[in-house]
Structures are given as C-alpha cells and as structure tokens.
C-alpha cells in the first residue's frame, strides 16, 4: 500500500485571507507531497511495514528498522500532521468549541481564552520548526494538555491522543506573516474547525472507555518520551540537536555515497 497525498478538504483559496492561496498551494502540493513521497521511498526498505498506516508507524517507531527509523519518523510525521492540519481548518471555522470538549478545556485551562493564550505561547516559544498541539494525556487522567514538538514529531509516538495542531514551520506562514509568528498564531483561530476537533475528542472518549482497561502506551524512544513529557522547548530542542548532529556528521566522502543499510533485506 502506497501512502497517498490526500486532497485538500476545500479549495486552495478557501481560507483566504487567513491562509493565502500561494501558501496553501505550496504547503499542500509541495511540502506535504514531499513527505508522502519520502515516506514511500523509505518504506521500500521495509516491505513488511508497507501495509501499516502512517499513524501506526508513528505509534510503533521501535518496530521500524533502525536504518529507516528517522526517515519514517520525519516523513510519516509530516504526512500525518499535515493531513490532520488541513482538516483542523475550515472556511466556516472560528467561533468556540462546545459540548464535552469545551467543558474539558474549561476544566484543564481555566477557560477558553486562557487555553488560546497558552496554545499561542507554546507555538511562539517553540524554537525552529515544529508544531503546537492540544492533546489528551492518556496517562494523566485524560486531562487535556498543550505540547510543542520539533520537526514533525507527533504526540502519537509518546502515547498522547492529538486533538488539534498548528504548524509553526516557517513555510506555514512566512509568505504572509514573514517573521511574525505570534500574529499568525493569533489569526489562526478565525479558521479553526472546532466541530472536527470535537469529533476527535468524542472518538477518543468512545475508544478509551476506562483508564483501567487501557492498553499500555506504545514503547517509545526514551529521549523523545522525556522531551515530550516535559514539554520544555529547550529540552526538546537539545535532544533533537544532539541526535541530528550525531547522525549527520560526514567525515569521509564515503559516508554519503548513497549506500543504504537494509536491515531486513530486499524482497525478490
């Protein structure tokens, strides 16, 4: 099964003036498409994983052969995050959350306005490229929590249930808002698709009936888990820096000669 770039759930100019057409087209047709392509390419090395969904891959990164784990983490993340991001916005969006979701926001953030401020702060403080999230903490009495992740890391990988996300990679806002990320984050509430977010929350509540009967959270890399758990941007950043730096050091020309280390061998 090849992963496929989903169509946008609306026209490319539907979210004007909040998301300009030029940004939307590049973001979907080029950026999102590149993650889908790179994910499929990485999975050529692991035929046994080709039938899994991108969400499953993110929840089971330890099952992914080490040689392609970073590529899968980055590109399945890019694919899943963007797909969820498109559906998190709508031309008729904005307004307020309602029902059980609003009750949970009131409970865990002392009100919707306060939640918005905290979410914007998390997005603003994230250093470099990444995402701001509203998630359900499955290990924390199903409390709602705000997270920020670097790159395309998805809270699914550390046992959270994502409800809402905003993209703070510069490509998401630079053509319209330039370096003014806080302005982008503030304006974004005008198109937030709350009915979709409420539906995600409802699905979570239906799927996860009781704390005691839950399956254990997926096994994940300890560094990532620690970084996500503490939500401190500096810590996430430092973990990522160390890893990326250690992976990309090239000392001899042979290192980047294109060889790939196939753990499971190639089919055929």
């Amino acid at each position, binding site marked *: 099964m090849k992963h496929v770039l989903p169509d946008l759930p609306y026209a490319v100019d539907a979210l004007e003036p909040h998301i300009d057409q030029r940004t939307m087209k590049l973001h979907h047709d080029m950026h999102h498409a590149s993650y889908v392509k790179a994910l499929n390419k990485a999975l050529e090395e692991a035929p046994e994983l080709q039938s899994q969904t991108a969400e499953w891959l993110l929840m089971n990164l330890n099952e992914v052969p080490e040689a392609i784990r970073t590529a899968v983490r*980055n590109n399945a993340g890019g694919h899943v995050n963007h797909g969820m991001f498109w559906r998190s916005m709508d031309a008729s969006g904005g307004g307020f959350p309602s029902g059980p979701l609003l009750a949970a926001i009131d409970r865990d953030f002392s009100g919707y306005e306060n939640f918005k401020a905290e979410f914007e702060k998390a997005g603003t403080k994230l250093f470099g490229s990444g995402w701001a999230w509203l998630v359900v903490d499955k290990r924390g009495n199903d409390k709602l929590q705000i997270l920020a992740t670097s790159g395309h890391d998805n809270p699914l990988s550390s046992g959270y249930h994502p409800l809402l996300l905003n993209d703070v990679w*510069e*490509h998401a806002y*630079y053509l319209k808002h330039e370096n003014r990320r806080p302005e982008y984050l503030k304006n974004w509430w005008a198109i937030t698709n709350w009915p979709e977010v409420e539906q995600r929350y409802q699905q979570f509540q239906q799927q996860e009936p009781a704390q005691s009967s839950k399956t254990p959270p997926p096994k994940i890399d300890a560094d990532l888990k620690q970084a996500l758990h503490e939500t401190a941007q500096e810590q996430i950043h430092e973990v990522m820096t160390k890893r990326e730096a250690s992976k990309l050091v090239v000392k001899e020309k042979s290192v980047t000669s294109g060889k790939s280390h196939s753990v499971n061998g190639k089919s055929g």
Partner: protein
Amino acid sequence: MALTLPELPYGRSDLEPHMSRETLDYHYAKHHKAYVDNGNKLIAGTEFENMDLDDLVKKSSGKIFNNAAQVWNHNFFWNCLTPESKAPSKKLVTALIKQFGGVDDFKKLFTEVALGTFGSGWAWLVLNADGSLAITSTTGAGNPLTDGQKPLLTCDVWEHAYYVDYRNARPTYLEHFWALVNWQFVEKNLG
C-alpha cells in the same frame, strides 16, 4: 559584553540576484536583530552578561544558547557570503582535495548535508582538533564550537533564509549559495 548586530559586509541589495534585498531586510534586520535583542534581554544580570560571544555559545544552554548561538551563526554566515565570489586559493583547494577528493566533491557533499538537514538548521564545514576537515549539520541554533570543532563555512537552511526567494526549493537556494561563497573568508578561518 552586550550582543551587537554587526554591519553587513555589503549592501542589502548586493547579493542579488542570488539573494534578494527583501530576504536580507528580513533575515538580517528582523531575524538576526531579534536574536541580538532577545539575547541581551536574557543575559542581563546573569553570569553570561560579560562573556564574549564564543564563550557564551560554549557555556550557555536553553534560551540563552539559542539566541546567542543564532547571533554567532548569523554573524558568521554573512561573512561567508560576498557579492564578488572568487575561486578558492591553492592552499584551500589542496585541503579540500585531501579531505574530500576535490572542490566539486566537497561542494556536492556539503550540498547533500544541507539538503538532508531536517527542519531548521545549519550546514557547516569545520576543522577538527586533529587537523582534518568535516562536514556537519546542526539543528536549530546548534554550533560546532560546542563539539570542539572550528567552523570554516556555513549555510543557513532555516526556511526564512530562502523562502522569500526560492519557496520550498532548498536545492535551488543551495545552487545560488555557491555563487556567493567568500572562499577567502573560509581560507582565513582555516588559518
């Protein structure tokens, strides 16, 4: 020692057509300046207030590191560029041949590392303590000084470095980067 925004070593339009004035208006006058201003706010009244920038980068962490290292990286990046790029001298060419097989081989590898840097970061040519050269990549504000390596050349691959001019086409940005490299600055760093 307060962080300062140094003058650019050329005019803001001088790197055109490879890097637009609009890019420099944002990248230098907004992004770089913001790191200077934020860094100064963060170090005020701390043990880092009077450190020189190299020490600050080597000894700080968290937000102070992010801002100070981004000041260092941008100071260095602007000096790596010039509107009048000339061929590298024999000494530098010899060093690149010895380590990478040739200047073109080096450029190809450096480009691969720059393109392979996921998200916001930097690609570097560095000098190791043992005298060998290496190409590395750092994420965010990462700087090779913290690994005991001496930076010789860098390319900024944060999206703000190229999105105005080249959108998502980082490979095109890299092609234009090579047209601007100040090889004499690289050689000076090699010592």
